[in-house]
């Protein structure tokens, strides 16, 4: 799956980092960094991260490009 984060919306709440630390993290300057693709085995954690984002900045897309969340 593909993961997109709208950095204009992101306010560094950190909820995605809590929910899926293998995908989302902060760098030393407190900027959010994330993997752009993830194995399907991590879907549950990534969906939790998207749901936990208070500003709804995270989108998950299937490999075909269909929006899934």
């Amino acid at each position, binding site marked *: 799956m593909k993961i997109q984060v709208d950095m204009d919306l992101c*306010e560094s709440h950190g909820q995605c980092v809590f929910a899926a630390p293998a995908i989302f993290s902060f760098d030393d300057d*407190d900027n959010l960094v994330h993997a752009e693709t993830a194995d399907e085995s991590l879907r549950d954690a990534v969906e939790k991260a998207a749901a936990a984002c*208070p500003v709804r900045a995270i989108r998950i897309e299937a490999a075909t490009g269909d929006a899934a969340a």
Partner: protein
Amino acid sequence: MSARFDEHGILVVGASLAGLRACAALRKHGYDGRLTVIGDEPHLPYDRPPLSKEFLAGGTDGADLPLPVAGLGITWQLGRRATRLHLAARTVEVDDGTRFPFDGLVIATGSTARPWPAAPAGVHTLRGLDDARSLRAALRRDGRLLVIGAGFVGSEVAATARGAGVDVTVVDPAPQPLHRAVGEAAGEFVAALHRQAGVDLRTSTKVVSLEGVRKLTGARLSDGTEVPATAAVVALGSAPATGWLAGSGLDITAGVRCDRHARVLRRDGTPAPGVVAAGDVTRWPHPWADAPGVTLGHWSHAAEQAETAAHSLLFPGAPASYRPVPSFWSDQYDVKFRSVGLPALADSADVREYDLGARRLDVAYFRQGRLIGALTGNRVARIAAYRAQLAADLEGR
């Protein structure tokens, strides 16, 4: 294993984040029956955190506030206030006397702001969209705001109003803002932010009376001084919205009492069949808190507990457990405060960074020597590390 709701379906009382998230979780778990939501506001669910920040500042017209409700198949009963729960008859009565029957019930009525008794016109509380709209209009009209209470809502409103050029006085009986929630050092940091921004901050002071025959003109304070004000915000905390549950047989002492599965308990301590609750309205057990548990008004808490509630309602034989690392945020001036754990329950704190010039703060909180929470300002990477440590502690309990 799953419960049956064939006749009347599931009724959700409360049309805010917790109620909506409960609906989404019910559908996600495959519930395809009737789903009805009662809300006392005329609005569909919307996002509340911007009400004390961007929305109040006028930086948004509110078009970004609505929460997504499409595809959930909800029958909305908006502008209707629940007034009574008849548990044995399994109905909820609303203000015009209509009774809504249910097979399953989700209680998500949130909390209400503590009002100022007999206030003149111009005195506001800030919980809902309509409150924020009228306060925003008042701040545009005239420019002397009194904020009563320097908790999170009061501090955010003060910061937002000051940013919009409004003259602001903040009055709080505690020695620092946010004293009860995050302690002395963090409170002093916030006090310094207010004072640097030109807020007239009066701590260890109470508002004795609000002046003005029909319209607010000012306030008299406990130190004998008077402050002029054309608008005031009463930010003295909130109380769980449980009035409609009086006499229902449920335990509503300081919130709707739940077990760790978000099942609602009756006064005899046993779960009421088919009744769950989520969000600000609940009091629930947490491994870090003494009995009878905690009440939280955090965004994340409302969202997460609603998932547990939905699961427990659908699968009563295998209820989910809710043991979160709580977290909240508060944006004030140019500082992003982020918190994890339960700092309000700490008995000591370790200030690891306090740099007002760089706008950075890092405080760790302990209870009986064990880490119980953390608060940072503009240090989000550190909050993630604290969160991981707290999650590991919970795993071991």
